[in-house]
């Protein structure tokens, strides 16, 4: 399927909270059927943005267009969209079945039809059929997640919004649910708009990602393009676990700050540019190892991350993160090591 038709357009959308702009002139197009993620730290305005899209918050200015029709003033209960809330907001006094059927109940659908739809949805989100009469308060975290998903899908909405629904779930289960979310997006063909503060989570499932900061979108693109070429230092740091090396001018030309190593040819840098180096690109060199740039540092500590091992090394006050090659024994804390990287692995960030 080609995902080119725009389903939801945001035009210069802003939200003013008593003089403070939570969302500033956001303009973007969300495509039919894609899994679009808006990612940003807390306070970046992402929640306000999605609440405006769902109809729970009124924009101060700008327009929201659903398939070309302006829906600014359409309240949430009249929009063909559903939201999965951060707290999930399951109705605790109801059973799993009643929760899932809620959208149909308030519409006055008959019992047979509701049950059939609930069955179908429970199968889709992989809930056992005998959970139908179970109270939602007796469901586990993952099950509650599935109930919330099924409930949001019941009315067959055009768009599903997700406001960080996985943030309270433990790591292992979250990883599973992230993948299921992507699968569900493919299976249903619906447009998903997802909010998270975790770029890692966004990477796993998204077709496209918008990075938000202080109410503005600072980068928009496919996961890999954001991963490989962060547009700004903010985005690079937000991804976490990267080395950022400052560049400064000295008598001879541009050099790496602190290391006072002249920049290699082919790297376009001016004062204020940062070089981003992923941990896997900054290697601990063996005795006779070679790299374009090498320097000495002291091993601070090493951290086993499942299949990988990260090493923090210090040079003066600077900390570098390096990923050890598979099978390489980590150096002892305090041990002197030699780090190195190639110019071709460094990404220049100009903002």
């Amino acid at each position, binding site marked *: 399927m080609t995902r080119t038709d725009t389903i939801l357009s945001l035009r210069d959308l802003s939200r003013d909270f008593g003089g403070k702009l939570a969302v500033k002139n956001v303009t973007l197009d969300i495509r039919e059927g894609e899994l679009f993620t808006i990612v940003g730290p807390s306070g970046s305005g992402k929640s306000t943005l999605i609440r405006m899209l769902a109809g729970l918050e009124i924009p101060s200015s700008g327009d929201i267009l659903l398939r070309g029709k302006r829906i600014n003033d359409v309240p949430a*209960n009249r929009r063909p969209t559903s939201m999965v809330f951060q707290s999930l*907001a399951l109705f605790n006094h109801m*059973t799993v079945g009643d929760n899932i059927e809620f959208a149909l109940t*308030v519409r006055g659908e008959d019992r047979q039809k509701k049950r059939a739809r609930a069955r179908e949805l429970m199968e889709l989100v992989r809930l056992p059929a005998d959970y139908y*009469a179970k109270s939602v308060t007796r469901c586990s975290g993952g099950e509650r997640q599935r109930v919330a998903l099924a409930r*949001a899908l019941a*009315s067959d909405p055009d768009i599903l919004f997700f406001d960080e629904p996985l943030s309270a779930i433990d790591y292992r289960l979250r990883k599973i649910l992230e993948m299921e979310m992507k699968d569900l997006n493919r299976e249903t063909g619906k447009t998903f708009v997802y909010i998270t503060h975790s770029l890692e989570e966004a990477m796993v499932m998204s077709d496209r990602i918008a990075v938000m900061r202080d109410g503005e979108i600072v980068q928009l693109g496919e996961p890999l393009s954001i991963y490989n070429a962060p547009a700004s230092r903010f985005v690079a740091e937000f991804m976490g676990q990267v080395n950022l090396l400052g560049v400064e001018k000295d008598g001879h030309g541009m050099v790496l700050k602190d290391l006072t190593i002249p920049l290699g040819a082919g790297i376009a840098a001016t004062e204020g540019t940062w070089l981003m180096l992923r941990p896997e690109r900054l290697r601990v060199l063996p005795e006779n190892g070679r790299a374009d740039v090498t320097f000495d540092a002291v091993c601070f500590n090493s951290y086993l991350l499942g299949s990988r091992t990260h090493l923090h090394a210090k040079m003066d006050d600077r900390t570098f993160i390096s990923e050890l090659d598979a099978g390489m024994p980590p150096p002892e804390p305090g041990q002197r090591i030699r780090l190195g990287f190639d110019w071709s692995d460094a990404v220049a960030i100009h903002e």
Partner: protein
Amino acid sequence: MQRSQRWWTVWTVCVLVLLYIPLVSVILASLANTRYLRFPHRIWTIEPYREALGLSQTYDLQMTSLKIALCVAVVSVLIAIPGALAFARYDWRGRKFYQRFLLLPVFFPQSVLGLAALVSLSAMGFDLSWRTAVFTHAVWIVPIVTLIVSIQVYGLDRAQEEAAFDLGASRLQTFFRVTFPQILPGLSSGALFAFLLSWSNLPLSAYTTGVDTTLPEWLYSRMSTNFAPMVPAVAVLSILASIVFVLVWQAGRVVVNGVMERRKQLE
């Protein structure tokens, strides 16, 4: 650990004894055939109870008190629902003011409040009866019930109402399908509280019942002027009545919950 636990037990027993001494005294007073309250009794008897139960007046007193208490419970809850939502849920101009002054009637000495109600109600031309007592009780009890319900409203996840609205429910459907069922436990406690506070109220009733007499009013007048062991016996019966009421109420809740559960299981 052992030692401190023993002290806790002693302390708890002391508190309980202190709380129940008056109650026990009343029971003791009702078990003698004397015209004066004194102890120990020379003759123990349950004759006062026979007398109290035979008195048709006590039946009327109980009915008046019951009528007032039930009305107050219903009225308080009906007023407390919007009151609690305004207190704990919605942001509006004047909310802070409302939160601070809601409890003012409770701080008023009840005898003053009763007198004020008496004066204003008669000035407005109302005949004083159990109905005016309902109104006056409500003035004092509604703030308390509002507070009890507010605590429940604070515990409600606002996102649930938003979720209902987002799923297509109207404001009214949202209230009846999501908000109301979730604050029901608070409403139930509030109603029970209102009932018991009204049932045992003396100062407000004394001023405002007019031609009617409630149980506490009658008890007070008979205790102070025309004492007989039958009077504490009526008091004990009244306490028993409220205990029975609480038990029935709780049992009702258990039964309703059980039925709801069964209904869900069967579906």
